């Protein structure tokens, strides 16, 4: 089993969710995060006090899938989240040792 983590632009969440549904991914977790890579922040000002804000709002989505699905998931997310501009985000893939469904106690790939 693989954990696929993607940091994407927040407004792309719905597009990515649809793309994942289409390839049969059953569940996703989404978290609001802040971050930056190469995308520049912005300046704010309040009564003469200027602040440069580096951190930008992003959305982190995580989904655990069977190892064989990982490549399809990467393709789906990349396609849906891409805008061509700096700040589109990144995808990370890591291994998952065990998965359990809480309601039934099933484990392993059956629990996905």
């Amino acid at each position: 089993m693989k954990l696929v983590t993607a940091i994407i632009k927040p407004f792309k969440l719905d597009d990515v969710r649809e793309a994942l549904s289409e390839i049969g991914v059953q569940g996703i977790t989404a978290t609001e995060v802040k971050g930056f890579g190469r995308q520049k922040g912005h300046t704010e000002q309040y009564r003469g006090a200027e602040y440069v804000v580096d951190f930008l709002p992003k959305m982190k989505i995580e989904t655990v899938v069977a190892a064989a699905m990982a490549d399809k998931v990467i393709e789906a997310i990349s396609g849906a989240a891409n805008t061509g501009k700096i700040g589109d985000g990144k995808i990370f893939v890591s291994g998952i040792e065990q998965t359990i469904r809480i309601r039934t106690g099933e484990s392993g790939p059956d629990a996905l």
Partner: protein
Amino acid sequence: MYKHIKGCAAALVAGLLGMLPALAMAEDTLNSGDTAWMLTSTALVLFMTIPGLALFYAGMVRSKNVLSVMMQCFAITALVTVLWAIAGYSIAFTDGGSMNDYMGGLGKAFLSGVAVDSLSGSIPETVFMTFQMTFAIITPALIVGAFAERMKFSAMLWFMGLWLLVVYAPICHWVWGGGWLGNLGVLDFAGGTVVHINAGIAGLMAALVMGKRKGYPGTAMPPHNLGYTLVGASMLWVGWFGFNAGSELAADGAAGMAMAVTQIATATAALAWMFVEWMSHGKPSVLGIASGAVAGLVAITPASGTAGPMGAIAIGAAAGVGCFLGAARMKRALGYDDSLDAFGVHAIGGIIGAMLTGVFADASLGGVGLADGVSIASQLGTQAIGVLATLAYTAVVSLILLKIVDAVVGLRVTEEQETEGLDLSMHDERGYIL
């Protein structure tokens, strides 16, 4: 019978009454129109503090301190109400005998003698007393802006209680209660000196004594909810009609003009700050336009009984630009941490307004006219005395009170409490449980 007489009207009224001996001996009679308006004004001015000022300030602090600021405004409202009834009103508005130039006496302590049918001019004395109470409430509440995010709640209560009786009530007496500044001819219709310069300077003292917030100015501390701030500023604007037009103590033409000049000056100042900021920073801001409006409200306060509409435009423009420079430029240049610009907006706006009151009261500039034989230059001199006397007294006495409270209770929260946020550390509450 004790008559409440405002500075600029003193000469005029005395002259008229001198010509009409019968009228001069007349008893006050209740005018229900005046009374209805003053009941309303009182509510409007209270509304300026709760929730107007509370929201205005709350939006400007960090979210971990949102409740602390509102708590301070609300608690001050309660504390001042009781102290004003017990002693403040008497010190401000009774005859102090040999000390009457500087303070009243305790003849009306515990509101003794203020009965259902007691009159003050054409309105019940209860209404006059409560109206003045709302001014006594908002003045210390303004000071909150200077020490926001770092003052101990208990110390704040002690300081404000003492400050009301030892600073506010005497200065109020000097200008409006029969004291020396009113007698000198200082024009201060609704409190440029008594309220704004007073609070602004006291705020500066508090900011200097307590020192800067941890992390200031390097750490970003942007306002956490400018929506609140704008809503609060709007409530201040609307409520201020009670503050200025209500200071006429009657429902008449002067009140109408006070309302008109208040509206015009405020709008002009809001635009002025907005445009200056637009030019200097590149974009107009919500905080800027709201601050500009408040600056205009402050500056027109002393002039609202004497200036005309075009004078209001001039005063508003001067305040919008002057307070922008005071809050956005001077503060950063000089380095003190007046968190929410109590000094930058209220002291500077109050001084600009108090001085320009002397100019725009003149009939040639659309005002009601200066007293017989008084030139603009000489009125400016009188205004300057009012400004300087208020400034000096409040600076010195506020400083002394701060030092005393610091020694006995400690003014500032600990570093851990400041980092955790005052809502939790002072009140065991969170402003937002989302």
